[in-house]
C-alpha cells in the first residue's frame, strides 16, 4: 500500500521530525484510504465483459485515493467522519418489492416509461418502457451493449471521472440505467428513473445513469431517489448526460433519501453545439448530502440552466458543488441555487464558473439565495468565477436572509397567524424552484410535500 512506500523513503519523514504528528497523520491517512478500499471490496464480482476494463481502470484510480477530509478544499465544510464511522454492507440479495410499495412514488405520466432500481439493483418486474418511440432505448445498462455497441463510447467518458466518489462508483459498477434517444427523436413522455432504497440495512448503493440525447432530440428524464425506511445507508450515484448538437435535455433530479442516509451524487453533463440542458435538483434527504453538478459546454451556443433547491432540518448537511465549464464562444448559462436551513442544519453552495479565453461572448448568471429559519442554522455560500475571456457577461449574487418581518406582518394583517405566515413564506421561497418542474404530477406532489412540511 502507498503508505508503506512512503515510510521507506530516505528523506526526512514526518516521523523523524515529530513522531506524534506523523503518527496521527498516518493514522488518518490509513483510515481514509483503507476505508475506501474496503468500500470497493463490497462490489459484486460479476460484471458484463464490456465494462470490465473501465471498472479496472477506476479501481486503479481508487487505490491512489482516500475518503476526503475537511483539509481537502472541496470538502471544507462537509465532514464525512460519520460516514467513516459506518460499516456498510453490500446488497447481496436484492429485496423483491411489489407495486404496492412503490405506488406512491410512481408518476402517472411515466406508467410506461419507468425504470426501477431497488437498492441499486435493476427490478425488471417493476419497470415498464412500452410507451417510448421505437428506436429509443431505455433499460438496463448491463444488458444494452448487445443491441447498442456504441454505448461503450459514452460509458464513463465524462470529465471528472477521477474524482474519488465517481471513481468508487465506476470501480463497482455492474449495471445502471441507460436512456438512449436517437437523432431527431422527440420523446414526449418523461422517463422516470426511480431508485428505491429499502432502508433495511446499511447498504452501499451505487446507482449509475447514462443519458445520451442524439442530435436534435428532446427528452425529459426524472432521476428520483426515494426511501422506504429511515436508515443510515449510503447512496453514491453517478449520472452522465450527453447532449448532442441541438438536442434538449430536461433533467429533474429529486433526492429524497432517508434523513439518516448519506447521499453523494454526481451529475456530469456534456453539451455539444446548440445543445440545451435544463436541470432542476431538489435535495430534501440525507444526514449528509452532497451533489456534484458539473456542466461541460463543448460547443458554441449551448444553453444551460441549473435550478437547485435544498431544504434541510435537524443537524443535517446539504452541499451542492456546481461547475459550469465553458470552452467555446456564445454560450449562456443561468443558475439559481436556493437553500433553506432550519434547526441546526448546514447548507453549503459552491458555484464554480470557468470562462477561458476562447469562450468569448459568454453570458452567465448565477444567483444563490439562502433562507435561515433558525439562529443555529448555518449557510456557507461561495461563487467561484474564473474568468479569463475579456468580452463576457457574468453576473452573480448571493443573499442569506431570514424571513422578512414586514412580509410576515403583511400576511398577519390579512388574518393569517404568524406561524402560518412564516410557513407560507418559506413555502413560497421553495416553490419558486418546484414550480419550474414541467412534469405535472411530480410538481404537484412536491408542492404538497413542501406544503405539508410547512403546515406540520
Amino acid at each position, binding site marked *: 500500500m502507498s503508505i508503506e512506500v512512503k515510510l521507506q523513503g530516505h528523506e526526512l519523514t514526518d516521523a523523524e521530525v515529530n513522531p506524534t504528528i506523523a503518527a496521527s497523520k498516518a493514522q488518518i491517512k490509513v483510515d481514509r484510504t483503507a476505508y475506501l478500499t474496503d468500500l470497493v471490496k463490497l462490489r459484486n464480482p460479476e460484471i458484463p465483459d464490456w465494462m470490465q476494463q473501465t471498472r479496472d481502470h477506476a479501481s486503479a484510480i481508487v487505490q491512489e485515493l482516500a475518503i476526503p477530509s475537511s483539509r481537502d478544499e472541496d470538502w471544507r465544510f462537509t465532514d464525512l467522519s460519520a460516514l467513516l464511522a459506518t460499516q456498510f454492507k453490500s446488497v447481496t440479495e436484492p429485496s423483491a418489492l411489489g407495486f404496492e410499495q412503490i405506488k406512491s412514488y410512481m408518476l402517472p405520466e411515466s406508467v410506461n416509461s419507468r425504470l426501477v432500481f431497488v437498492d441499486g439493483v435493476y427490478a425488471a418486474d417493476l419497470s415498464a418502457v412500452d410507451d417510448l418511440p421505437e428506436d429509443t432505448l431505455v433499460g438496463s445498462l448491463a444488458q444494452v451493449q448487445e443491441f447498442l455497441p456504441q454505448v461503450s463510447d459514452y460509458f464513463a467518458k465524462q470529465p471528472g471521472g477521477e474524482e474519488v466518489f465517481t471513481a468508487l462508483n465506476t470501480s463497482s459498477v455492474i449495471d445502471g440505467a441507460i436512456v438512449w434517444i436517437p437523432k431527431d427523436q422527440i420523446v414526449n413522455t418523461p422517463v422516470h428513473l426511480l431508485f428505491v432504497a429499502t432502508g433495511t440495512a446499511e447498504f452501499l448503493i451505487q446507482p449509475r445513469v447514462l443519458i445520451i440525447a442524439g442530435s436534435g432530440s428532446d427528452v425529459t428524464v426524472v432521476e428520483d431517489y426515494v426511501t422506504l425506511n429511515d436508515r443510515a445507508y449510503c447512496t453514491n450515484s453517478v449520472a452522465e448526460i450527453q447532449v448532442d448538437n441541438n438536442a434538449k435535455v430536461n433533467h429533474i433530479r429529486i433526492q429524497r433519501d432517508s434523513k439518516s442516509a448519506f447521499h453523494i451524487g454526481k451529475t456530469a453533463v456534456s453539451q455539444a453545439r446548440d445543445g440545451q440542458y435544463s436541470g432542476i435538483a431538489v435535495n430534501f434527504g440525507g444526514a449528509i448530502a452532497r451533489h456534484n453538478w458539473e456542466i461541460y459546454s463543448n460547443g458554441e451556443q449551448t444553453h444551460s440552466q441549473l435550478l437547485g433547491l435544498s431544504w434541510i432540518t435537524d443537524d443535517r448537511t446539504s452541499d451542492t458543488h456546481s461547475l459550469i465549464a465553458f470552452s467555446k464562444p456564445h454560450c449562456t448559462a443561468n443558475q439559481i441555487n436556493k437553500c433553506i436551513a432550519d434547526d441546526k442544519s448546514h447548507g453549503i453552495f459552491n458555484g464554480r464558473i470557468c470562462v477561458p479565453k476562447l469562450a468569448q461572448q459568454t453570458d452567465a448568471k448565477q444567483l444563490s439565495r439562502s433562507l435561515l429559519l433558525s439562529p443555529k442554522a448555518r449557510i456557507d455560500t461561495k461563487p467561484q468565477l474564473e474568468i479569463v475571456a475579456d468580452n463576457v457577461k457574468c453576473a452573480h449574487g448571493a443573499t442569506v436572509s431570514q424571513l*422578512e*418581518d*414586514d*412580509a410576515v*406582518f*403583511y*400576511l*398577519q*394583517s*390579512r*388574518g*393569517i*397567524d*404568524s406561524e*402560518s*405566515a412564516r410557513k*407560507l*413564506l418559506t*413555502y*413560497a*421561497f*421553495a*416553490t*419558486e424552484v418546484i*414550480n419550474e418542474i414541467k412534469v405535472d404530477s411530480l410538481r404537484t406532489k412536491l408542492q404538497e410535500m413542501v406544503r405539508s412540511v410547512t403546515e406540520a
Partner: protein
Amino acid sequence: MINPNASTILSVKNLTANVDGTQIIKGLNLEIKSGEIHAIMGPNGSGKSTFSKILAGHPAYEVTSGEIMFMGQNLLDLDPEERSRSGIFLAFQYPLEIPGVSNRDFLRVSCNAKRKHESLEELDPMDFDDLVYEKLELLKMDSEFLDRGVNEGFSGGEKKRNEILQMALLEPKLGVLDEIDSGLDIDALRVVSSGVNALSNENNAMLLVTHYQRLLDYITPDYIHVMAEGRILQTGTKELALELEAKGYDWILEGATV
C-alpha cells in the same frame, strides 16, 4: 354619513408611541363611528403611516401610553391577525410582493381565516372563485391577477387595486387606507375610489390617510383631521380640505405651536 346614534367603531385616546425609542405619536385622539368616512391629512413625516400600522398591530411600534378601543374591545390586546379577523383592514402604502404564493391562494387563505373566526364554513376553491370573480369586476381587474404571485411584478396601481380587492373580500368594520391614491393615474384613481365608495356603508367606517386633497374629490369624507408631529391638530368637515388646498398646512401648524 354622520348619524349621531351610530355606534362607535374606533376610539383612540391620548395615544403615544415610539419606534426605536423615538416618540412619533405624541398624544393622538380620534373617534370614528359606524357609517363615517374620515380622512387624516398632513405633511410627510407627520406620523400618518405610523398611526395606521399601529392600528394594524405592527410589532416595530411600541405604544407607550393611551388606549385604542375597537368595537368595545381593547385593540392593543390583540395580535395583528386577530385584529384583522375582528374587522380592521389596513391597505398598505407599500404592499409587499410575495413571489411563490399565488394571489388566489393568498386571498382564499386570508378570507377563510376570517370566516373561521366568525364560525362560518370555509370556502373551497370553487366557491371562493365565484366570490372573487364578483369582486374582481368591482375593481375592473383581470382574473389573470389571481394566478400571479401576490403583488409580484404588479405596477403601483395594480398593487393598490389588489389591496382594495382584499378589502372587498374581507369586508372589514374599519378600512384604513394608507395613501391609496399614490401612484395612481386618473383612471385607476376612479376605479379604486369607486371601489371604496361601493364598499362603504352604514355598518362600517373608512379612514383615509393621504397628503393630497385629490383623493377627496372622489371619496367624500365626513370628517377631516389635520395631523402634524404625531398629533391631530385640527378637525373639520370637508370644507377644511378646500381650505388646506388653498392655504396649505402652515397656518394650522403655526396656530398649534404654542
